[in-house]
């Protein structure tokens, strides 16, 4: 979305188009030819917003997982989210300074009882990211399966998909997620919560995949595959789904960003991640009244939620542009 403003880049883009068109004419050009996948990748790597976002996302992920460690693996940050430390600054204010850059003892400050807030925020980020990516993966798999079945075989699975979609208009996703999240809280563990969230977030993707498959199944190459006796599942997996890959990947990213928001909202309401474990939403919920007295307790988790959701959305936008061949013609 930010790339087409630059005239130099527009030229490059048109060159790329020209290359595609000149591909069959082998005598006049020595240019390398690209497969569809390579073209998509090239367009994606040129999308400045998406690349910056990807870098930030990788940075946040590495920071969250290496700093306090993951599971039994220890990290480089010496403090943890359980112990109480002596309060360093007044009221436990952050010791982070940007210029000259120094982390200090507690870069994100301390809670009222002296816990290290950096460790808490990192743990919350870990949990939010883990849940979001699990939901994204699981919901994409479920949605693709049901959407492809509904689109290709029609009949019962299509009726099922449509009625479930109607159901989600009547019961808001967040409401169902809250009920399931409360259940998952009794089972325990963030992956139980992630599984439950995946169960409620696949419908949008399934509808889109169904629409895509509906139009693809009427195309000649599917008819050809059918004519030589290819089995339906092989047609779906080898011929149809690769053509629907753009829709699937773009919506998987959007699923991830919405999963982050749903998870944090549930934790805020008290139906998501439960103490003693923590998540970014839970941290905000616990500290929402601290905004005037200890603002850092409120700002840091919020900045991380907005940051992650924003970069994932930008990556999705970049992928959409990369997969959409019409995008370049305007």
């Amino acid at each position, binding site marked *: *979305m*930010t790339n*087409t*403003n630059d005239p130099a880049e527009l030229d490059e883009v048109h060159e790329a188009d020209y290359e595609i068109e000149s591909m069959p004419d082998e005598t006049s050009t020595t240019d390398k030819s690209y497969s569809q996948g390579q073209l998509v990748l090239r367009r994606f790597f040129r999308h400045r917003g998406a690349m910056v976002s990807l870098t930030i996302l990788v940075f946040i992920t590495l920071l969250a997982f290496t700093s306090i460690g993951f599971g039994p693996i220890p990290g480089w940050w010496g403090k943890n989210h359980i112990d109480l430390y002596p309060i360093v600054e007044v009221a436990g204010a952050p010791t982070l300074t940007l210029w000259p850059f120094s982390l200090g003892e507690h870069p994100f400050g301390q809670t009222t009882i002296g816990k290290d807030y950096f460790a808490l925020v990192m743990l919350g980020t870990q949990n939010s990211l883990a849940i979001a990516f699990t939901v994204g993966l699981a919901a994409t798999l479920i949605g693709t399966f049901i959407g492809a079945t509904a689109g290709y075989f029609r009949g019962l699975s299509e009726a099922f998909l449509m*009625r479930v979609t*109607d*159901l*989600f*208009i*009547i*019961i*808001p*996703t*967040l*409401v*169902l997620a*809250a*009920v*399931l999240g*409360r*259940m998952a*809280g*009794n089972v325990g563990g963030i992956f139980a919560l992630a599984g439950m969230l995946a169960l409620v977030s696949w419908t949008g993707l399934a509808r889109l995949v169904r629409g895509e498959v509906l139009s693809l199944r009427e195309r000649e190459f599917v008819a050809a595959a059918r004519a030589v006796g290819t089995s339906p599942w092989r047609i779906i997996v080898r011929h149809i789904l690769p053509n629907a890959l753009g829709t699937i990947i773009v919506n998987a990213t959007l699923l991830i*960003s919405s999963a982050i*928001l749903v998870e*944090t*909202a549930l934790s*805020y*309401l*008290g*139906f998501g991640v439960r103490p003693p474990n923590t998540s970014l*939403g839970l941290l*905000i*919920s616990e500290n*929402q009244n601290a*905004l*005037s007295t200890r603002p850092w307790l*409120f700002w840091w988790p*919020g900045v991380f*939620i*907005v940051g992650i*959701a*924003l970069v994932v*959305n*930008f990556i999705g*936008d970049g992928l959409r542009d990369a997969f959409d061949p019409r995008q370049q013609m*305007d």
Partner: protein
Amino acid sequence: MLKFIAKRLGISLAILVLGSLLLYVLVINSGDPLEDLRESNDPNRENRIRQRIENMGLNQPWYERYWDWLTGASKCLVGQCDLGTAVNGQSVNALVATAAASTLRLVVIASLAAIVIGVALGIITAIRQYSGFDYGVTLMAFMFFSLPVFWLGVLLKHYAAIEFNNWIVDAEFSWAVILGIAAVLAIVLQAAMGGDLKRRGITAGAMFGGVVAILFYFDMVTWFRHPALGIPVYILSVIGVAVLVIVMTSGFHNHRVRNAVAATAVVAIIGYVATRGFLMQGGSILLLLLLLVVAIGVAVAAGQLLGGFSRRQATFASIITSVLASLLAMADLLLSNWSQYLSEQPRPIPTIGSATPNYESTFWMMTIDALTHLVLPTVALMLISVASYTRYTRASMLDVLNQDYIRTARSKGISERKVITRHALRNSLIPLATIVAFDFAGLIGGAVITETVFGWQGMGNLFRTGLAAVDPAPVMAFYLVTGTAAVIMNMLADIAYAILDPRIAR
């Protein structure tokens, strides 16, 4: 058409019942309803546990409990609801009555505002594709998509409400603030209007000068403490609205539409001037609704009588004019009562609740009170929907603008205004009809969060406390109200869809 509606309604009702079964079973299995009692040290514990099992029917199998609820709830169809009792023995009927009104008010206002703002922004960004305005709005949309509602709500409470309440005591702008606001508005307006450099410069300059002058004037008379439109400004605004409506619908050359709209505007002005003094004394929702119906009636009459062969368009344009004029009148009445409200409530924007508790005053005071309580939750709830409506409208409008019939219309020499309003706009709104239904469900989900942040005693609160206590009755009441509202919204969207695109109904 009727068959289509009946079929959709039948499916929706079936889904409503099925959804209730699903939700009921999930809720009663979501936790242990006796948890708080099991952990208590009350000597009376065993007795209380037995009592609660008895009250909630925990000793019955799930299908009997569900059947009990369903028979009670289905009596709503004949007007004798029985939604059961909450865990503390309160009748859910009584809880719902107060909660439903405040939540539906919030959600409906938020979704209407989101549709109007989002569609307008979407259309402008599509027309000015790849302009600075387009990029700005897109960036904002991405920001709003990524904002957690509860985080935004807390920020609004702290910065918008508390800061505004501090400011309204004096209601004074510094020069820097006046210039800053004027500069921002000028930049936004020139970006939205587009055109060549000269035109942009003129737009920006005029806007800048105008805003500075108005703000300076407001500052001098402390308008923000004693605001009012007054009759002269009202008349000018209604004339402005009428001109705008004519330009947007038919243009000035069609004298039938022009006359109908003008007649409506004149009647609206005379009517308001005549009733203003009476309305200032007090009013009621019923009276206002009655006046709105009268206004629409006048508009329909004007359209039908003066419309001639463009009767339909004349009626449509007149109705829009009369509704807008009524809204302006409402705004004038509210603004005129604002200074008195300020003297009764010195810190006008509250952060908690849906109404000031035990506040008894005139109708207009109560209305302002309800509205000031609505402002922040509505903004928090609205922004995300605005983002999605903007994106969808933009995409759909761009799609339509690239169609062949738009090129045909342009090549016939039709003015760009007509191409946009008559050929492109309507067709680009068709896909939005389906999104409205989904978005409404999303807004209700959002309302659960917003109500928690702003401490509303609404349906969301009913749901949250009910679910926390594994108490199905309030949760199901929430479901019944929001589900029915969603079915109705969906129904309206379907009907709109069928009107906009007749192929659907077949």
